[in-house]
């Protein structure tokens, strides 16, 4: 009771004090988020021996040497970092487009139409939302061998058609923002069902599609497990597989090379994040879809 009676009488001074403490902690956490990346960029401009001697917050002058060393060393890997980025892009772009289009299609089908298996289908999608890839990876790998699709990008692209979590998100969005009168009106105008979906509904779903597209692209771009399972040829390796090759002993001897290599692999996502952070952060809060 005593405690409680104190509560409303909070002074401005106490508010200011907690404000300062909180700001201090939050700024510390922001710096903690940035620090490893900052050290990475700094170290990519320093010589290996300087790096081994300790941390520095000042940029060095070895960037060009490190880049040159990195360029000559990556020759032995059978794929360049830029080629691996292009490979990742070749996978991530179609996977993203398929994922958002077919998820919107599925969500629309369940949301708008009344059919016998509607509730069963929705329950099924909710149930499989939690099934992780790893638990069927072996069967998937064997199946891809049977279909002769090993070492192609198809096994990394086609399954994007089924992303249950995106379907879930899209349906939530449709529930809140699709007036069914519009579909009725389109029917009266003689529009076919798929035509209505492609020309009227898809444009209305743009915000949801854009948000989910960002997350799906990131998920596909960052994926390591599936590409490791499917891709064998060096020149087809994705960016994450390229990073894995950087862990080899021959790279670990020159830290300048490792850091400059890492900086190159991280840069695209880094730039994308700061360009799109507004949408990404809002998307997470809406039930952002991971993995």
């Amino acid at each position: 009771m005593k405690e409680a009676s104190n509560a409303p009488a909070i002074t401005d001074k106490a508010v200011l004090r907690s404000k300062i403490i909180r700001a201090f902690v939050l700024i510390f956490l922001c710096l903690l988020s940035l620090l490893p990346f900052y050290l990475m960029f700094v170290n990519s401009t320093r010589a290996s021996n300087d790096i081994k001697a300790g941390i520095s917050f000042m940029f060095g002058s070895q960037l060009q040497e490190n880049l040159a060393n990195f360029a000559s060393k990556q020759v032995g890997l059978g794929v360049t970092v830029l080629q691996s980025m292009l490979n990742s892009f070749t996978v991530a772009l179609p996977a993203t487009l398929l994922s958002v289009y077919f998820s919107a299609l599925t969500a629309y089908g369940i949301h708008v139409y009344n059919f016998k298996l509607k509730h069963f289908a929705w329950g099924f999608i909710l149930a499989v939302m939690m099934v992780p890839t790893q638990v069927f990876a072996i069967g998937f790998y064997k199946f891809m061998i049977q279909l002769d699709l090993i070492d192609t990008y198809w096994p990394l692209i086609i399954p994007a058609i089924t992303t249950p979590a995106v379907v879930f998100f899209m349906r939530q969005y449709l529930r809140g923002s699709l007036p069914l009168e519009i579909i009725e009106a389109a029917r009266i105008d003689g529009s076919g069902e798929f035509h209505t979906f492609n020309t009227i509904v898809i444009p209305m779903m743009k915000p949801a599609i854009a948000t989910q597209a960002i997350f799906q692209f990131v998920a596909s771009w960052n994926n390591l497990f599936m590409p490791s399972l499917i891709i064998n040829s060096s020149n087809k390796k994705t960016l994450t597989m390229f990073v894995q090759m950087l862990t080899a002993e021959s790279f670990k001897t020159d830290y300048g090379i490792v850091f400059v290599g890492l900086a190159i692999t991280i840069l695209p996502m880094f730039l994308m994040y700061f360009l799109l952070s507004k949408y990404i952060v809002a998307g997470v809060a809406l039930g952002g879809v991971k993995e």
Partner: protein
Amino acid sequence: MNGKNPKKLKSNNYGKYGYFFILPFLIVYLLFSLWPLLSTFYYSFFEYITRNLKTTISWTGLNNYINILGLGGDKAYFLKYLGNTLRIWIFNFIPQVLLALLIAAWLTDSRVRMKRGGLYKVMVYMPNIITAASISLLFYALLSKFGPIISTLKDWGWLAADADIMTSKWGTSLTLSFILFWMWYGNSTLLLIAGMLGINPSLYEAADIDGANGFNKFFHVTLPLLKPVLLYVLITSIIGGLQLYDIPALFNTSTGGGLLGLPDDTSTTAAMYIMRLHSSDTGRAAAVSVLLFIITLIISLVFFRLFRDSDEYKQAKKGRRGKKSALTSGKGGAQA
């Protein structure tokens, strides 16, 4: 659940179009997920022996399971790697959820309003988007025996001259936990903020009138109403944690290949075990997958049970609106 209009549509007999719209999803799911899942079960009962590039396959019953569980004379690799995985996960999750609760409470506090809340959110979430593989190697390069951070700590006398995280079981394990924590607490924070913003402000006003202080309000109003979001964070985290692959696979592994988590196999996770065996010992890898699936299933079922209980509770409280908002709040507390 779907408003009143679908009834009107039904009379026009458009219902069958629903099948056409969901057909691509179902076909691809059956082929590329469900069939592989069933065949993984099937493969787990066979033994694969490769000699001279020829693989012989023979029925072996439950032997793969017996072997990976250590009941057949072999080492209990599955249990060992599951233990490694859970050890890494738990030391990431506990600090992660505590810090996320604190930051979320701070950023939604109406009494002490923080400026630039948006910027904080952007910054703490950032590590979650960056390629995990690169982050893992980055931490390795910074913290290995000759890494700049370790060298500097030694110069300051904070670390013994022969200290090396990479040869210490707990050093490696806790560093992996830290990387996960650092990557994911921002995500949990954003989900919890969304959950907290969804709590009816009048409840806090009522608590104020009753003379509750900040702590009382947090423990008696915020936490109980946050239960669905917290459960969602917990479940997605543990299911993701069981699959843990990228970070340990690139952090401190044997350079000779074979995906061995150093030191002494103590940072190898279950998913790394699957990857290690996938082409050489398919049957055993399949058995590992099946056991992971069963564990995931049990966790999910427990979750849905708990979730359903809180769902019913909400429905009872909110009446008709309950069902809808409980679903959204389960999916990250979005009150769209």
